[in-house]
């Protein structure tokens, strides 16, 4: 097991180099000049030139890549061309915001998705099955943009139940530790901030979680259906086990592997796919930041953030793989 984890972690190195090379070259393929986009059309030719020199943009591409990777391996992710701040600092507030949103969205997606999937499978062809699976179909095809605006209109503008966007209300104070507001308010025992940040995260997390929720529900249903038809379930029934025990203890555990795979990949999707949700709900996360940085050709920011997300992705996959063993002890990693 330990060997396996080490092997997987070593695999990070080629992933690292591959992703960095890809991000580096793709960025330079799109037309545009970071110096120009930073200084705007008011800059003189001399200013542009001196900025390009300063940023090393006149060096040959292989030299630029080599310089960049040397810095990265020394733990220096570079500086934003636009803001002059270090990339690490730039994402220190944004990555936690995105993680918080993604995790809460995933929790919604898992809880509601798995439950709906189970009930649909157990009561197959019932009205609940039809309604929830039709709902799931709508869910996977729902444009987040539209859904988000409708939610704000309904719950904030019309009903005044929830705050329209942002992370914390004006006037609510919170001592920041991790920049994950829900966690920070728990750690400092600040219940007012916890309630407020929970109210803020509710709509964006639901909007973001809609598609994964639908995918998980459909996967749970089909996987459960398969397991429920197997002999050992019939045996369990014959033994007279309680129905809920059969479903949760025996069937779900056996049906969970494909669901877990979907959850793992959906989490990656959440980390990368949050741009729209972050835009609609003014969530100051990393998705929107990378998007803006691509527009302004902020090379160091885009490269390094993509690297970090790629590493997170690999780690999530690794954790998913390790979790497999706990659902199916027959799996061996050696």
């Amino acid at each position, binding site marked *: 097991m330990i060997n396996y984890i080490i092997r997987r972690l070593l695999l990070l190195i080629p992933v690292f180099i591959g992703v960095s090379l890809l991000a580096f070259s793709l960025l330079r393929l799109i037309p545009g000049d970071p110096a120009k986009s930073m200084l705007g059309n008011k800059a*003189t*030719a001399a200013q542009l030139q001196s900025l390009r020199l300063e940023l090393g943009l006149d060096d040959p591409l292989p030299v630029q890549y080599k310089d960049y990777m040397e810095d990265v391996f020394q733990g220096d992710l570079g500086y934003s061309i636009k803001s002059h701040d270090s990339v690490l600092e730039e994402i*220190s507030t944004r990555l936690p915001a995105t993680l918080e949103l993604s995790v809460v969205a995933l929790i919604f997606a898992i809880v509601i998705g798995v439950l709906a999937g189970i009930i649909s499978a157990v009561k197959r062809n019932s009205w609940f099955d039809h309604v929830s699976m039709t709902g799931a179909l709508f869910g996977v095809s729902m444009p987040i943009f539209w859904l988000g605006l409708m939610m704000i209109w309904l719950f*904030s503008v019309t009903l005044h139940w929830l705050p329209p966007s942002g992370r914390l*209300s004006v006037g609510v104070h919170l001592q920041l530790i991790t*920049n994950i*507001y829900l966690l920070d308010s728990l750690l400092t025992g600040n219940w007012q901030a916890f309630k407020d940040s929970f109210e803020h995260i509710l709509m964006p997390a639901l909007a973001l979680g809609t598609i994964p929720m639908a995918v998980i529900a459909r996967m749970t249903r089909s996987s459960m259906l398969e397991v429920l038809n197997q002999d050992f379930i019939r045996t369990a029934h014959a033994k007279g086990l309680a129905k809920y025990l059969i479903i949760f203890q025996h069937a779900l555990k056996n049906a969970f592997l494909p669901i877990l795979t979907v959850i793992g990949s959906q989490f990656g999707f959440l980390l990368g796919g949050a741009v729209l949700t972050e835009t609609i709900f*003014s969530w100051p996360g990393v998705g929107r930041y990378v998007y803006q940085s691509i527009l302004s050709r902020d090379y160091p920011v885009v490269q390094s953030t993509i690297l970090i997300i790629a590493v997170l992705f690999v780690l999530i996959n690794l954790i998913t793989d390790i979790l497999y063993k706990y659902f199916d002890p027959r799996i061996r990693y050696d």
Partner: protein
Amino acid sequence: MKRKQYVMILALIMSLLLIATGCSSGKDAATQDNGNGGTTAADNSKSNGNKTLVFGRGADSVQLDPSKVTDGESMYVTNQIYDTLVRYKQENTEVKPALATDWQTSDDGKVWTFHLRKAVKFHDGTDFNADAVVYNFKRWTKSADFVYYGYMFGASKDNMKGIISDVEAADDYTVKFTLSEPNAPFLQTLAMPPFGIASPTAIKKYGDNYFKHPVGTGPFIFDSWVKDDKITLHKNKEYFGQVADVDKVIFRVIPDNSARFMELQAGTIDVMDGLNPEDMQKVTDDSNLKIVSRPSMNVAYMAMNTSKKGPMSNKKVRQAINMAIDKKKLMSLYQGIGKEAKNPMPPSLWGYNDDVKDYSYNVEEAKKLLAEAGYGDGFTMNLYTMTNPRPYMPQPKLTAEAIQQMLKDVNIKVNIVENDWDTHLAKTEDGEHDAALMGWTGDNGDPDNFLYVLLDKDNAKKGSAGNIAFYKNDQVHDLLKKGQITMDQNDRTEIYKQVQEIVHNDAPWVPIAYTTPPMAVNKKVMDYVPHPTGSEPFNYIKLK
């Protein structure tokens, strides 16, 4: 076993949180600093009052050191924190005393002496004096990073000072500028937010991180900055000018225009920038909201390349094209935020010539002129346009297509060439086009900043042309040069009016529109007067 699963899932979540924590590298993070080392998500309000103005906008500031940026979102905030030597009047671009109480110019216009306001303190408690002014101006000559200094004062690699050859403190409260050549717009330029005077002590203290810890003398004091989320300021009770009525200002980033409008409807923000024109009716219908329009300081135009052999070099053709374009129709593409233009500078600037009579839309007359010029059978021309909307032109592509249709009526066949903004700039500066859609947003509210930059022969050099009509008229050049060294504003006004008359007659452009970007505000916000330069200090605003 079951318990183990929960433990693992919990471990998964916890490890993710740990990763996130690892990424937030401590207290002095991008969030901000409130002066005493603590990091709070909300502001830590130092003023006791509770009148808070929440301003919703589409993007965050880039840096809070205005000398290093060009984006309006940065200027919006720094305009509250810093003062300049002189400031613009509330409703137009004339200047009034600010950190300088009065000033004199030498007869040759090369030496400017400013007397500074006494007993002013920076927000960090240090004294504002002549040394601080000199320190700031010297700092701006040290690197090409100080974009606006280089641009407005003509700095180059070999001469980082540009036209300001010397700045010295004559005594504690007197600063003397020596210019290498007379520059009439100098005073107007000093009023621009990029030239806000910062505390030298704070600049030295924070070094490269100064832009996250701005310290000025302005009506509001910086509290905190959560990037992409909000910037919080509180009022400066010791302000030398009008002390603000609002106690706290929060700039919130709400990227989507529709979502921002719903925030305004929900009452969670008080002012919104960037209202969709199609939402204007909803604002009018809402009893809690009202529209305020920012006076225009821009102009959208179609430049005709007068340096190209062929029809465009013929004045009659250009006049005919002016007559063949129905501006009223083009205004429908502006959805109520545009006003037909007739001059190369907007009416909010002093020196605007309202006596110029615009070419009226007249297809028959246009045809007659074209026939006189020898183009009665028409000709083919290309029209370069940008793909993305600009503040002065919300729908460039549709505008180009409308012009194409209109010119068809006078037998001119238009081929539209579309490029993204950067490419469009490069190609038109190179003079590739027969005609091109373009626009300009003013910097300092001086007519020179429109007329000289966009229509003087000095700026008609291929590769870096501001004058993409490549319009060269010696009389205009002489007048504009005279305007730069004439210190009396009344005399200058006469000069610029004359220039507008000549330009109108030579018709290197079809002036299209001046836009007045609408903002929506809650009715409890009183006395909100948007300034043509794009940002205004909030100390005059009252909150009901």
